[in-house]
């Protein structure tokens, strides 16, 4: 009987890894170009990192993989990281708190139990966090960075959906429900029950119209928020929050970035304080983020504002493909009779091809599938037969340099020349 993987766990096969590495390279390259630096946090963190911040919902915390470590006699539980942002904030507080601004990115897996076992319980995220940036321009930067990555991935029409936790919080405050009822209402909203807020809003004429507009309609320009602002008889706090939202949407309008305002789109995480956004592809969430100004101080750090986003690799990989031009060219080296002499020549050829910028593998037993170029190594001169399977042509050559020229010349040399020419 073949031993199988754990329920809810998934293997990444070579074709998956090719996709994953491509996604990773596009993400890394873009983040580095925008001045973000890569960090990596441990898979294990203390559970209290996530409970003390009070930022993850009990429903989510009830599904974390937590256990007692080998020295956990004190009852202190450790957890397999259930979220990407909180550990990065912990990392910042612990190591980088002296910086005014930290632009960080990470590629990591997050763990969470899922009942059926048919979905992945270990999911990969690619995230950026901008800690210390307090203006709408920081929000704009992370949004544009996210957009840029998705456009480079060329996986289809990406939709940007916006909401604003600050606007919602200020409206809920105006309902004056009292601590307990307010907390209950937040719980309902977290679970996606927006009707609870609609019902609560109906009892307060001062906010009911604006709530109704914001919850029932979706906007496509900053005009939608202007209309809500005009309709409102609400507090200065609400106006300050909607102005913050407006500042961003006005800039997106000016830069011609399409978006949809859907105030009911924010759910799940509780640490957002301002802008919340989601990237969607064919109505599936492939990423999301927002502003979380309270999180750094909540976790014992300085009073630093912050924002960020994460892309969900598992969903993205379902929808993207790796462009053929980015795939490495493969050369297969094979010998009819693998003697000591031909084996040495195979290895020498492989090393030379690697140095010239090719992926070259040796087929020891003659079982591997042909590539575009297959080189047969013989014990006698002319030593090499290069088979071009696409052109159905075979040519015999006697030196390694001739083989390299035949399959296209040194890729490394070409790249150097191109760089010089630029």
């Amino acid at each position, binding site marked *: *009987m073949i031993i199988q993987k754990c329920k809810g766990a998934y293997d990444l096969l070579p074709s998956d890894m090719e996709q994953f590495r491509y996604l990773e390279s596009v993400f890394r390259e873009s983040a580095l170009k925008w001045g973000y630096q890569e960090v990596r946090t441990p898979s294990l963190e203390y559970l*209290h990192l996530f*409970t*003390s911040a*009070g930022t993850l919902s*009990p429903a989510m*915390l*009830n599904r974390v993989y937590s256990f*007692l470590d*080998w*020295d*956990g*006699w*004190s*009852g*202190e*539980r450790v957890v397999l990281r259930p979220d990407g942002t909180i550990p990065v904030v912990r990392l910042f507080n612990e190591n980088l708190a002296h910086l005014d601004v930290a632009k960080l990115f990470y590629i990591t897996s997050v763990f969470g139990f899922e*009942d059926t076992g048919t979905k992945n319980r270990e999911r990969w995220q690619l995230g950026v966090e901008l800690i210390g940036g307090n203006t709408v321009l920081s929000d704009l930067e992370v949004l544009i960075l996210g957009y840029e990555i998705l456009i480079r991935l060329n996986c289809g029409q990406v939709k940007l959906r916006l909401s604003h936790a600050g606007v919602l919080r200020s409206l809920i405050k105006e309902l004056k429900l009292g601590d307990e009822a307010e907390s209950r209402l937040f719980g309902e909203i977290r679970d996606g029950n927006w009707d609870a807020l609609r019902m609560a809003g109906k009892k307060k004429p001062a906010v009911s119209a604006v709530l109704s507009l914001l919850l029932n309609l979706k906007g496509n320009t900053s005009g939608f928020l202007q209309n809500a602002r005009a309709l409102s008889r609400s507090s200065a706090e609400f106006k300050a929050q909607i102005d913050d939202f407006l500042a961003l949407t006005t800039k997106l309008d000016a830069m011609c970035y399409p978006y949809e305002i859907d105030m009911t789109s924010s759910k799940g995480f509780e640490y957002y304080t301002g802008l919340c956004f989601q990237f969607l592809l064919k109505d599936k969430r492939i990423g999301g983020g927002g502003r979380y100004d309270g999180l750094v101080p909540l976790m014992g750090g300085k009073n630093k504002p912050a924002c960020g986003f994460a892309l969900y690799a598992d969903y993205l990989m379902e929808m993207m493909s790796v462009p053929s031009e980015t795939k490495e060219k493969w050369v297969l080296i094979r010998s009819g009779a693998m003697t000591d002499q031909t084996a040495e020549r195979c290895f020498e050829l492989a090393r030379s091809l690697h140095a010239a910028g090719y992926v070259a593998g040796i087929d020891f037993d003659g079982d591997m599938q042909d590539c575009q170029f297959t080189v047969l190594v013989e014990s006698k001169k002319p030593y090499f037969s290069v088979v071009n399977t696409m052109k159905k042509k075979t040519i015999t050559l006697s030196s390694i340099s001739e083989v390299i020229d035949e399959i296209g010349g040194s890729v490394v040399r070409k790249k150097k020349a191109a760089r010089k020419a630029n």
Partner: protein
Amino acid sequence: MSARRKPLEKQIKLALPKGKLLPATARLLADVGISFDNYTTETRIYRLNSWNYPGLSAKMFHEKDVPVQVAVGNYDLGICGSDWIEELQVKYPASSMVKLIDFGYDRGALYFAVSKWQPYASVQELLNKKHSLRIVTEYPNLAESAALNLRLKKYQVFPSWGSVEVYPPEDADIAVLKAYEEKELMDQNLVALQPMLQTSTFLIANRDSLQDKDVSSIIERFSKGIKKSKKSWLGVTAPSAPIANTYTGSYSRSAVRLAIPDGHQRSPTVELLKKAGVVIKGYTNGTLDRRPVISGYDIKVKVSRPQDMPLHVANGNYDFAVTGKDWYLDHLYRFPSSPITKVLDLGFGWVRIVVVVTEDMPVDTIGDIRRLLQSGKMKSLRVASEYINIADRYLNENHMNPYKLIPTWGASEVFLPEDADVLIENTQTGKTLATHKLKIIDTIMESTACLVANKHSLKTSAKRGIMDSFISAISAGVEKT
């Protein structure tokens, strides 16, 4: 055309509780007309057959084991407290178990309680605490879930085998425990901050059994029974010995603290203390005081479960404790760097930790079982044990692969052969094992009572002198036996 399905299984299996629920459950069964001859507190025969329902068989389990056995499908129906049902379901919401009928007996509630000497008047006050809150409980899953739902910022859960009322306020901030009424908590110097869960005794069923089997005859009996105007089982309670918990509010972390055992080990411990010339009040006879008083030594004493002691010694709640070598090693195997050390073998309470199978299993050594697994004749080994960490280490060291470990809470012999293949259990004479037609195929270790100590306490100058002097007296007592 699809293949014919298997003939419907007619045998109905019922998991019944031992312990405090037994008298009322026995009355309930009698009242609804389901009769088992040996379902009594005195019985040592845990496998029961109903004489008026030939298709019904039952087994007696520790109450905590009943929902697990029903959820995994070993039993179609079970009777147990809803506290243990919830304890399982809060951790495993997808478990295949359904609550069917509330019988209404052993009604009570689980409480989030603190000591009356602690400065917490409400849960809200607990939420504002920045330090880690220590929660002690027999219900670790429910306690953890409550802590998350209440959004406690930092907490530690100490799972306990029982007697949790003894821990607050010095050794725990919160006790999550069951009580029939709040007064019961007040008698133990505890204050209920909030009830977490109302509890009662339920008939539960395995979901697959409900879907695929006809268990209606038994369900119907119970559902007709609870419609009766006279429910005699509601008045039946299990006798319990009165226990005091006389904390006076004075507490110093620098005092030397000793834990001594309740249960079976109480009597030999009394004997030993007597031989050591240690005078103790509230422990020797009559009403047990959870906090007895020792004369002649500046030592604060608590009485708790030997199984729980190593964990509390490691955490510095006790400086030393009388426990079993078995529980000491079970703790150390789980936490190898734990700051706990054995300082004295006390000589009494000798048992062997043995590996047990049924007499008719064709094996004589653990190697035979390994060969069965390797040959594929046995697909997976099910091992039941109270000693989870000892069992886990033993199975790994003996290359048992694959195996499933089933935690139990005592009387594990009932698990063989239907619900486990192997038992790792303690035995003195082996007579109980023989009664159940079981045989020993290996001895893992011998265990006696021992005095264990916190390594840091032994190095603390303020405590060392008192501890040394007490250990010397106990050592002298051991020599006299």
